[in-house]
């Protein structure tokens, strides 16, 4: 296949998926919200859940983005080293964002620093944001996509602690972020926590944690335990939907880690709102696309 056609094919497929992602939640987020709505007993919180579910239904019925803030698009690319069209990927992703901005439509959210101008098409240096990972023996392409909205990005943080702060220090960073700006970020929240050496690695790991499925646990038993400890602590604060109080405040807490230097303990925390719009799309070497994150909600 000619490279120009390859690029258009990938771009079309990704633009279609961005359209779906902006209008339907991923299955795991939807299922967890159903569970939380069911468990809620406070009348004012129940009413907020009613409104959220009416919004989910109406977004599908009227074919409109669930939330007006369709975010700055972030692609976490897992590219098989044997995928035949590696050089076409970044151009195709940019093209996909351009198409979806016009067709879906996505809100133009890319503002150029210093000029302070909105580019109007979501294309700018760093928009879309692309992170690369090469998968040695694979010949396919997996895209994990996140629509980074303003409200849920505002509470994000990365700090480097002294190791003596320990895991208590890690939890402190999360709780402070939740109670400071997190309460305004459309709770119930998804919380991703990254632990590593530097502010940058902890930050990236926290976003990878946010991309992990709701209900999945870190394979390391201690990390999984920490996920539960933080989740219980945040739920005990009783923030509830829209910070109007309620039984549960988090969809889930996921922890990802990398080695930390003996002299540092870096913590990153990333947040997703109740309408966390993330998705997973797989494209094989024949350029057939499969949506992995939205199966049930495509039937809504």
């Amino acid at each position, binding site marked *: 296949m000619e490279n120009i056609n390859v690029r258009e094919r990938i771009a079309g497929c990704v633009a279609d998926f961005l359209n779906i992602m902006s209008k339907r939640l991923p299955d795991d987020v939807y299922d967890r919200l159903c569970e939380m709505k069911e468990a809620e007993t406070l009348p004012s919180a129940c009413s907020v859940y009613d409104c959220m579910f009416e919004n989910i239904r109406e977004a599908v019925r009227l074919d409109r983005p669930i939330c007006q803030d369709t975010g700055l698009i972030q692609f976490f690319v897992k590219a098989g080293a044997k995928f035949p069209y590696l050089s076409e990927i970044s151009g195709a992703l940019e093209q996909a964002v351009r198409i979806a901005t016009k067709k879906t439509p996505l809100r133009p959210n890319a503002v150029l620093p210093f000029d302070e101008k909105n580019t109007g098409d979501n294309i700018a240096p760093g928009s879309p944001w692309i992170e690369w990972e090469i998968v040695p023996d694979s010949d396919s392409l997996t895209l994990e996509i996140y629509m980074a909205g303003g409200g849920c990005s505002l509470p994000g943080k990365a700090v480097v602690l002294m190791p003596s702060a320990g895991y208590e220090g890690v939890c402190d960073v999360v709780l*402070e972020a939740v109670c400071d700006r997190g309460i305004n970020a459309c709770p119930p929240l998804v919380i991703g926590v990254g632990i590593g050496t530097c502010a940058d690695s902890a930050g990236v790991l926290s976003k990878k944690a946010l991309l992990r499925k709701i209900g999945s646990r870190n394979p390391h038993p201690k990390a999984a335990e920490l996920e539960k400890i933080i989740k219980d602590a945040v739920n005990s604060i009783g923030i509830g939907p829209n910070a109007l109080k309620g039984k549960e405040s988090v969809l889930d807490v996921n922890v990802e880690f990398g080695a930390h230097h003996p002299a540092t303990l870096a913590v990153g925390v990333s947040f997703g709102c109740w309408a966390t719009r993330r998705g997973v799309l797989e494209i094989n070497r024949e350029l057939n696309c499969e949506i992995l994150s939205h199966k049930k909600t495509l039937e809504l």
Partner: protein
Amino acid sequence: MSCENTENKKVLTTPFREEDIRSLRAGDVIYISGTMVTARDDGHKRLVKNGVFPEIDLEGLALYHAGPIVCKNDAGGYDMVSCGPTTSMRMEKFQAEFIERSGVRLIVGKGGMGEKTAEACRKYGAAHGVFPGGCAVVAAKCVEEITGVEWEDLGMPEALWKFRVKEFGPIIVNIDTHGGNMIADNKKIFEERKAEQKKVLSEKLKDFH
């Protein structure tokens, strides 16, 4: 407060009278009909810091912290696609002066606002209410017509969009003119519980590693 409950709705119409706003209490659920105007970070900065006023007289109207998605229609105007509220706290720096200079009576957004805004609400007879965050399609359905736009040079999210709404809500009154500031009060409770949880965590993590 259910979105689908159309009975016994308390509906206020613009231009709001001062006594109507002063009769509201934090926690009340209201719906509004009439004119809403959007302004976010840049709009507040332009009015307060640069002293530039829009053509529309904001006196008695509803200010909406929102950056909608709109699309051009065949008639040359705009249609509302999706317009949920944005985080109100970002506007805290300029809000009090915005209220004083523009005369808006109701501010709608999401999340809480600070003491400076609350003081301006008491002084000038204004209120702040929250619309459920992320419920952008429910909000857009209450918009009858986009009647105009100003400051388009700021880009779609930051421009000042003017629209006519019918029974826009539910809006939960957050800051009233009597000292009520619901989310700020909630935040104090959350802070207390956070302090308790830190003690619990300290105990749980004692032998963690």
